């Protein structure tokens, strides 16, 4: 026979009073079928059958008080070990190692006896237990001030002692935290990581030496609008007019053009008397453009497109007291030398008198810089977009040259041709220059 004891009904209560049996001796009952009603201090509860079987004996009558864990009902035969009946607490009543707290008890009596039931130490639920021992060391407070607080030893007001740690780092005064880590704004860290910049190479300009986004950008030399760049000096004059225009167009040229220069000398030995240097130069350039139209063109880097120009409009660099101006002599290819000379004079006067009109400056197809009138033999003239070539003529000089196997002194004009190698080949440039030389070296 199998005896089923009154389970812990979940309130940690020691006993229950039988109110009413629902089954009789000899009944065959099914698992979970209500067997009886009992009353605890809190409520009347039903006790379900822990398994199916035949009732052999009832261990109590209505009105009897049964202690938790005492026999309640008996079944025929050997039946499987009782499933945990009723509440979860019943099953865990066996699982929990009871730890009845020992107290210094002057009366010599212990806590109310729980008889044969294990003291679950809780009225509800299941407080987990183990045999594990906790071994730990705990330091109270901040690192330098903290003292071990294990085993209930007093931690001695460590919170109030001044710590050796520099909390100024925390409050924003030191550029590096106590352990040497860099202090950087999160956005700065993210940007530096994106640009593969090593933060340790930056100086922080934020409050307390913190590295900020601007520091990262400055280090990466990212182009930003000119107004935001840091000036190299203060108190200078702001550029205006022609100087300002030159600064801007030269910067534009630098950022876009691929300058390449070829140098040569025109031998003017055979020139007749009374040649007009400037008109001869202009005519020679026109001849070069005819031989190699590629140098009389416009090029746009953004769209990678080129336009060969039908006429030769030469922009001639003129030096004025205000700065550089480049008036354009139009249709050089179809004008007579006299017309050219008139036009040159007109523009030079206009430049001096500051009456050059915008029309005079438009539609340049190729440029000439006649710096040799002042000084200098060779130069690296700068191509200004959208043109693709500029010829610089240097100071005439009487040079010693070899002619066959004789030494002679010839008047020569140094020439410096710069072309935009993005759209003009070396061959084209050389052929242009050859044509210019051929025309210049004619006697008239």
């Amino acid at each position, binding site marked *: 026979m199998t005896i089923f004891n009154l389970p812990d009904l979940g309130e940690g209560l020691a006993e229950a009073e039988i109110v009413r049996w629902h089954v009789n001796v000899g009944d065959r009952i099914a698992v979970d079928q209500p067997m009886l009603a009992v009353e605890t201090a809190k409520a009347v509860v039903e006790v379900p059958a822990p398994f199916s079987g035949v009732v052999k004996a009832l261990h109590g009558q209505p009105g009897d008080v049964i202690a938790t864990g005492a026999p309640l009902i008996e079944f025929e035969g050997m039946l499987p070990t009782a499933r945990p009946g009723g509440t979860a607490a019943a099953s865990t009543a066996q699982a929990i190692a009871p730890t009845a*707290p020992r107290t*210094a008890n002057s009366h010599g009596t212990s806590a109310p006896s729980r008889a044969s039931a294990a003291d679950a130490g*809780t009225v509800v639920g299941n407080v987990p*237990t183990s045999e594990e021992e906790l071994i730990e060391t705990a330091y109270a407070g901040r690192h330098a001030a903290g003292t071990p607080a294990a085993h*209930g030893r007093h931690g001695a007001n460590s*919170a109030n002692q001044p*710590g050796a740690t520099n909390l100024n*780092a925390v409050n924003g005064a030191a550029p590096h*935290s106590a352990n040497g880590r860099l*202090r950087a704004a999160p956005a700065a860290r993210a940007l530096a990581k994106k640009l593969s910049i090593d933060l340790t190479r930056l100086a922080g300009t934020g409050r307390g030496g913190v590295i900020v986004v601007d520091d990262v950008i400055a280090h990466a030399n990212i182009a930003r609008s000119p107004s935001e760049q840091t000036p190299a000096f203060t108190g200078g004059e702001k550029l205006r007019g022609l100087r300002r225009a030159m600064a801007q167009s030269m910067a534009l040229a630098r950022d876009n053009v691929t300058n390449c220069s070829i140098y040569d000398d025109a031998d003017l030995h055979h020139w007749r008397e009374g040649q007009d240097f400037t008109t001869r130069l202009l005519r020679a350039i026109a001849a070069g453009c005819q031989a190699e139209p590629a140098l009389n063109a416009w090029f746009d880097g953004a769209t990678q497109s080129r336009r060969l120009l039908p006429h030769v409009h030469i922009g001639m660099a003129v030096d004025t007291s205000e700065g550089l101006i480049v008036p354009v002599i139009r249709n050089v290819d179809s004008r007579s030398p006299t017309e050219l000379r008139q036009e040159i004079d007109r523009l030079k006067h206009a430049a001096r008198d500051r009456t050059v009109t915008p029309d005079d400056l438009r539609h340049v197809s190729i440029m000439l810089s006649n710096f040799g009138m002042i000084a200098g033999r060779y130069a690296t003239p700068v191509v200004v977009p959208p043109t693709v070539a500029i010829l610089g003529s240097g100071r005439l000089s009487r040079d010693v040259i070899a002619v066959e196997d004789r030494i002679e002194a010839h008047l020569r004009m140094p020439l410096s041709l710069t072309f935009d190698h993005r759209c003009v080949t070396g061959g084209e440039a050389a052929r242009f220059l050859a044509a210019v030389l051929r025309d210049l070296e004619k006697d008239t």
Partner: protein
Amino acid sequence: MAKVTMIEAINRAHAWEMAHDSTVVVLGEDVGLNGGVFRATAGLQEQFGKDRVQDTPLAEGMIAGMAIGMATQGLRPVAEIQFMGFIYPALDQIGNHMARMRNRTRGRLTCPLVLRMPHGGGIHAPEHHSESLEALLAHHAGLRVVCPSSPARAYGLLLAAIRDPDPVIFLEPARLYRLVKQEINDDGQALPLDVCYRLREGSDVTLVTWGAMVTETLRAADKLESEGVSCEVLDLATLSPIDHDTILESVVKTGRLVVVHEAPRNCGIGAEIAATVAERALYDLHAPIKRVTGYDTIIPLSRLEHDYIPNTARITDAVRATLAE
């Protein structure tokens, strides 16, 4: 020296203090004759008598109110709320009187009392028995909120709480009550309030936690150590006022912070810690702060409670996320 569980440590702290300070009294439901539903006060009524260990009716407002009255008149009550989930009826007394008695009377009347209660879930209990409501109380000025995570700290911090001249809400993690034993000296030594306890030193990430979550957090730290991650673990211990300085010092060292608490995420104490670290140590952070918390739902009943309570895997995932930045 003796090896005791947390519940035994709490019991001994009561006994020591009551033996050495005759003004300390105990009150609550089932604390006297039954010694408390978790046996925290077992044996005290036999030892110190019915006048000093009183069973109250089932009335939390009355328990809090009586404790306030006793405290203002020269006693040092240690009152028990049987489960933190039962605290709502007492909030009127706590917020309107306990927390502000000193302020209201300009110091003429004070409340040197402790209101202790089981905290958190994981014990297969019915509804209302698994709450973690520390954020509600921490938010209220005039209350100190303390939560030990080991038998030794339960002993030392309870003594400190009883001796503190102002109200202390003492939260005892129920699923740690009997989980482990620890050697303690039953010598009446208190531990400092208002400081974090560093349980593990590390250099890659700072983990801040309290209560029962300390167990899972230390387990997570062990797992991460085997992966080469060095974790520093701080037991907050006093949940209000928060010891920000220790946390900040640690975060400045490690550059990463993960806060772990069983209580729900929304407006939890983890948010306060995260905000303060963001205010004062943003430039030392290498990754966003992470919180591993209970979900923003009512804590479920027993079959699902371990899906709710953060487990070791959720903690290790959060730490790895901070390292992946």
